[in-house]
């Protein structure tokens, strides 16, 4: 026993309606014989059987729509008896091609439209379109307060933007502003209808006052926040300062040797060695590695050295070189390069911008020999590094020329005293004399 199923008569046909059966149960049919007429929404087509045999039960009534593949009748091998009662055989009225949708219930009577004020005044400008109303709401602009510059006083999108003081900014200008830390709200556009363009942003960036030589920056680089932080630091933190000169000869010559057989990409700069020494010293003297909060020193859970980085055009950020005490010198070097690169392209992670446990300001490249930095609350220490410079220096009683660097420490006298600060610098100095251990 097998099934005679609804065939697919075209790529876009997924169901059909039996119009009329051309056979009845018990009929002997040859392969290819027409079995029924099917309506496929486009026309009535005869469908044929692919097997010879005896028609069994007709499973689908004329007028019934079924999916392609649905069994329409059973087919018996010769001799099998049909089981169920025969389905009514006959011609059903051909269903109209498109089924008329049932009449909808009488629609609820529409209340007479209350004329909005805009429609009352015949000469009033056309009401703002829904998307425009949405845009205005988004920007918190009260449309009633906006006078339209469009035809017949129609309010245009530009009117809404102008009302919301949203300057139109070219994409390049918007990117430049972000890179240069320029606040777009403060920039006047010289383009058509006040559009802010790249040169406007550059002009704004140049007009900014010079960066104070000494202070470190809070992670947020805009001027107002830094100013608040620095004045709070000076107001609240009793700074003490200690400094020393470190003979960098051993470090510098060690670096020259190891760099000789390193590719340029893996070379290590003195600044990295200094950072490494500070990190190791901070691990040895945890009292300088933490925060002064509500009158109590809270030690940092690990050493995260804040590195003051100058982003182009004077802006400064001090993201943390995390777990610096665990980073071998070559690894720290690459981490440093990566950190600086990302800082400059504005892609620092949240963790990196969170508070370092102490900060280092290396202004050697800017040419100063000694730095007296302002501690960044709530930290309790800041290490200042000057320029590496060749100087006459007594070596075992003889006069020689040595590469020297001035290290300084600004300490929060509430958390530590000059004694600890001095020992901290001495520790850094000692670490720098054994570079291979860095």
């Amino acid at each position, binding site marked *: 026993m097998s099934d005679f199923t609804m065939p697919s*008569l075209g790529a876009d046909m997924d169901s059909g309606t039996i119009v009329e059966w051309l056979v009845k149960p018990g009929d002997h049919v040859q392969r290819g014989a027409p079995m029924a007429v099917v309506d496929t929404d486009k026309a009535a*087509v005869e469908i044929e059987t692919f097997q010879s045999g005896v028609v069994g039960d007709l499973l689908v009534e004329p007028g019934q729509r079924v999916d392609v593949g649905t069994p329409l009748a059973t087919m018996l091998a010769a001799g099998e008896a049909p089981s169920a009662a025969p389905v009514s055989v006959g011609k059903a009225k051909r269903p109209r091609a498109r089924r008329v949708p049932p009449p909808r219930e009488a629609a609820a009577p529409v209340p007479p439209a209350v004329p909005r004020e805009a429609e009352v005044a015949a000469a009033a400008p056309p009401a703002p379109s829904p998307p425009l109303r949405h845009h205005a709401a988004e920007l918190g602009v009260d449309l009633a307060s906006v006078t339209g510059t469009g035809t017949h006083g129609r309010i245009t999108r530009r009117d809404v933007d102008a009302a919301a003081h949203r300057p139109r900014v070219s994409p390049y200008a918007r990117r430049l502003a972000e890179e240069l830390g320029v606040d777009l709200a403060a920039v006047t556009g010289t383009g058509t209808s006040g559009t802010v363009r790249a040169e406007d942003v550059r002009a704004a960036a140049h007009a900014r006052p010079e960066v104070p030589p000494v202070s470190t920056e809070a992670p947020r680089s805009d001027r107002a926040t830094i100013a608040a932080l620095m004045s709070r630091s000076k107001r609240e933190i009793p700074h003490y300062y200690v400094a020393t000169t470190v003979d960098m000869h051993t470090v510098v010559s060690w670096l020259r040797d190891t760099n000789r057989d390193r590719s340029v990409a893996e070379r290590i700069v003195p600044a990295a060695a200094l950072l490494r020494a500070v990190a190791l010293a901070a691990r040895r003297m945890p009292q300088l590695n933490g925060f002064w909060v509500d009158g109590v020193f809270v030690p940092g859970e690990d050493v995260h050295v804040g590195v003051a980085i100058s982003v182009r055009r004077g802006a400064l950020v001090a993201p943390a070189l995390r777990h610096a005490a665990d980073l071998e010198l070559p690894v720290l070097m690459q981490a440093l390069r990566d950190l600086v690169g990302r800082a400059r392209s504005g892609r620092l992670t949240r963790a990196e911008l969170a508070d370092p446990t102490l900060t280092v300001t290396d202004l050697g490249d800017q040419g100063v020999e000694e730095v007296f930095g302002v501690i960044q609350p709530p930290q309790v220490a800041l290490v200042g590094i000057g320029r590496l410079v060749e100087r006459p220096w007594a070596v075992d009683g003889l006069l020689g020329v040595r590469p020297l660097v001035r290290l300084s420490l600004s300490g929060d006298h509430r958390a530590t005293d000059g004694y600890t600060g001095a020992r901290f610098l001495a520790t850094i100095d000692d670490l720098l004399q054994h570079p291979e251990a860095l």
Partner: protein
Amino acid sequence: MSRRRTSATGTTGTGAIAPPTQHRFELLRQMTRIRLFEERCVELYSATKIRGFLHVGIGEEAVATGVLTVLTAEDSIVSTYREHGHALVRGLSMDSVMAEMFGKVTGCSRGRGGSMHLFDVGHRFYGGNAIVGGGIPMAVGIALADRMRHQTSVTACFFGDGAYAEGEFHESANLAALWRLPLLFCCENNLYAMGTAIEHEQAETDLALRAASYGMASWSVDGMDVAAVEEATRHAVERIRAGDGPCFLELRTYRFRAHSMYDPELYRDKAEVGHWRERDPLELLTAAMRADGELDEDAFEAMTAEARAEVDRAVDTAEQAPFEPVEDLTRFVYSEAVGPGPTRAGEEGAGS
């Protein structure tokens, strides 16, 4: 360059000299393979295994078989969307054609062409073509290339009575005749351009008569009698190889089923179909062989069973065959970096 105005338009009757028995049995085998293959395709389409468009040539088997049995390996074929018979007789494996219908990567066009675009450059089968008359100008070009390289190969180009009305046919017929190209125009006149009877689409329905006006030899042939088709083709191909320029065959035939899978056939009545069924090309040949006492019934039965098994195998392999990985979607939009040496038709042609 005088052009002999030959325009024999006589119809060759069925009294052709009977080819040796073995050859007639092979013709019967080819026609049986086509018939069983296409009948199975109709079932597979109804069961949604094959999608898109499906145009079967059940009833026109004698045309493909009669023409292609004359051509040699060096000759080329350009066909249309009703091409399964041409492809199978030309030598495309039934597995590769069925796989193509299933859209599998093992299909002869990697599943990208489907029923209307079967390709096999190894057999110089330059595809079906879904644009009515679209392949004809290309066939002119293939013939032109062969002629320019002084080769005696022939290009056979199949098209229907519908294509006969396309501008591309007229331009090509004129160009081929003008340049005396080795091209065989095979017009499968099945009396209907989809749903339009020939008298509603051609002002003059004697297509061979009109073809002669381009200055090429033209014949009308009984497209249901494979022997007649073969004889006419042999005659035309001899003239072409001799450099007499293109020939035109009007092969009068009939398709027993609808134009395509979806076609309520409102345009013709059952009686006409019944009348043409009486001259089913398979039955004509078996009757002729039986009359001449040349039909070995057991061999005939075995051959039919083997053809049916061949179709079953093709369907099974097609069902298991993989689809082309989606990552290959853009491959071959442009030819892939091909090393030196004749690996593609373009190059082979130059080499041979």
